[in-house]
């Protein structure tokens, strides 16, 4: 990768679940302002990579550096404070809380409390449906709305790096279209995004850079456009 200082570096990281190794000595970096997508099949280690970045699982070896600071092994709740926010997999929202309560919790670690209302308004502007349903229990939202809430809530934490885990999972095609549009819009405001997707075609279409994972290792990587044109990738992941 080129000129800019990377905002995130993943250096030679190995992650285990018990005795099973989920990630094998993986290294990559993310440049500021880009969308980097991690694609690959189920069990390739995509979500584990995000869990390691967020501090939900501690790597056995290697280091994770964010904005020049080593964050390896820090507890998850301290990593969020450094403006590294994740919208977790399976629309990980608090189904027992209202939409607005979810949004509020997203701002728990936000460094600038003064921007709270402005961010809340921004989130609702991005997803007007959420404003309509602000006092509803989030468990009553549709799948698409829950995903929107997960993204809006992550933005409440004023991230500099946004991690999105399978935002298209289980959603209808038109909703997926809309979610990817919004991801592009958020990126245009200068936000760096790491996007984990099984839906490789759509992810590579919005991303600047792609990393293809297979059983916990990087199979190939490169500018998203190049990957989209590669025969090998098209065959293996894009269903051609």
């Amino acid at each position, binding site marked *: 990768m080129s000129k800019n200082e990377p905002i995130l570096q993943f250096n030679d990281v190995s992650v285990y679940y018990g005795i099973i190794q989920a990630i094998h000595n993986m290294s990559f970096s993310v440049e500021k302002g880009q969308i980097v997508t991690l694609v690959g099949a189920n069990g390739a280690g995509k979500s584990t990579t995000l869990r390691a970045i967020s501090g*939900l699982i501690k790597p056995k070896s290697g280091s994770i550096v964010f904005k020049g600071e080593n964050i390896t092994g820090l507890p*998850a*709740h301290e990593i*969020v404070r450094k403006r590294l926010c994740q919208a977790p997999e399976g629309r990980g929202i608090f189904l*027992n809380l209202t939409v607005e309560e979810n949004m509020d*919790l997203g701002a728990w*670690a936000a460094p600038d409390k003064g921007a709270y209302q402005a961010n809340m308004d921004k989130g609702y502007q991005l997803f007007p449906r959420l404003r309509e349903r602000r006092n509803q229990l989030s468990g009553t939202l549709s799948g698409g709305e829950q995903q929107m809430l997960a993204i809006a809530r992550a933005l409440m*934490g004023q991230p500099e790096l946004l991690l999105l885990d399978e935002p298209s999972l289980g959603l209808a095609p038109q909703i997926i279209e809309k979610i990817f549009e919004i991801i592009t819009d958020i990126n245009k405001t200068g936000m760096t995004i790491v996007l984990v997707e099984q839906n490789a075609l759509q992810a590579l279409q919005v991303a600047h850079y792609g990393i293809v994972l297979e059983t916990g290792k990087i199979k190939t990587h490169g500018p998203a456009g190049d990957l989209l044109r590669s025969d090998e990738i098209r065959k293996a992941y894009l269903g051609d």
Partner: protein
Amino acid sequence: MAEFAQYIINGLSQGGTYALIALGYTMVFGILQLINFAHGEVFMLGAFTGLYTSKYAGLAILGTFNRLLTGSAETASTGAAILTAIVIILVAMCVCAAVGFCVERLAYRPLRASPRINLLITAVGVSLFFQNAGQLLFGSDPKAFPDLFENLEPWTFGADENLIVINPLQVFVFITAITLMLILRHVIFHTRLGRAMRAVSFNHDLASLMGIPTNQIIAATFMMGSSLAGAAGVMVGMTYPKVEPLMGSLPGLKAFCAAVLGGIGNVTGAVLGSFILGLAEALLSGYGTPTYKDALAFTILILILLVKPSGLLGVNRTEKV
């Protein structure tokens, strides 16, 4: 009719104490999926804290309030008795919160990642530890709780067959229990801490991704639940009025049954289940036979587990403890 009213009053007062204990069970279960069998012992420690506070500082506190309210330390007044009782309850709540904090920190937190059955066995162990440490420390013979309300006449309504007697202490217990429950409700549903507690109880990882320090929230939950049990301990001590190191086990188990009846993990359910149990016990003692009063809670437990295992207000969850 008067008889019935009398039983209802007794039942509400008893239900209030069950509710205070049951809330701790249900809160801890909600956040850790742990049945904290040591909870009854926290209740016992609350009663002992109340006993010793009353014994060594009760008269001084009472005298101070009497002087403030009536101008003389010797003149008894209801207000002073109530204020003294409140101070004693607050002391016990603080001590029990500290006990809850230590139990969580020392016994349960090191086992957070281990299988749930280990936690459950540890809870039984902590319970036995406190029962025996209590006997060693306080002696196993029952101790009399100083009567703060001794100068107060019971209120009577009607006469002869229609006589209803209301002990001011019963009213005090009921009102205090309700007040504490309303405060708890406010904390859980209308404060940032409560929101974080609900988030942690939904999913620990997800909560920590928000930046919520889950360990602190779990500790706070233990402290709140334990302080309520402490308040219940003092009030039961005042009502009965004797205190002994094994007094926590039966009320603890009954309150647990009440929490399961209401739907364990559900705060409103715990209160509902407790009042149902309190009233049922009072009515059974009154109209049936007091002998089987203590069996009632367990009968209800078995019935609810057969008919609706998730409890009256609980949601179905396929989880094993």
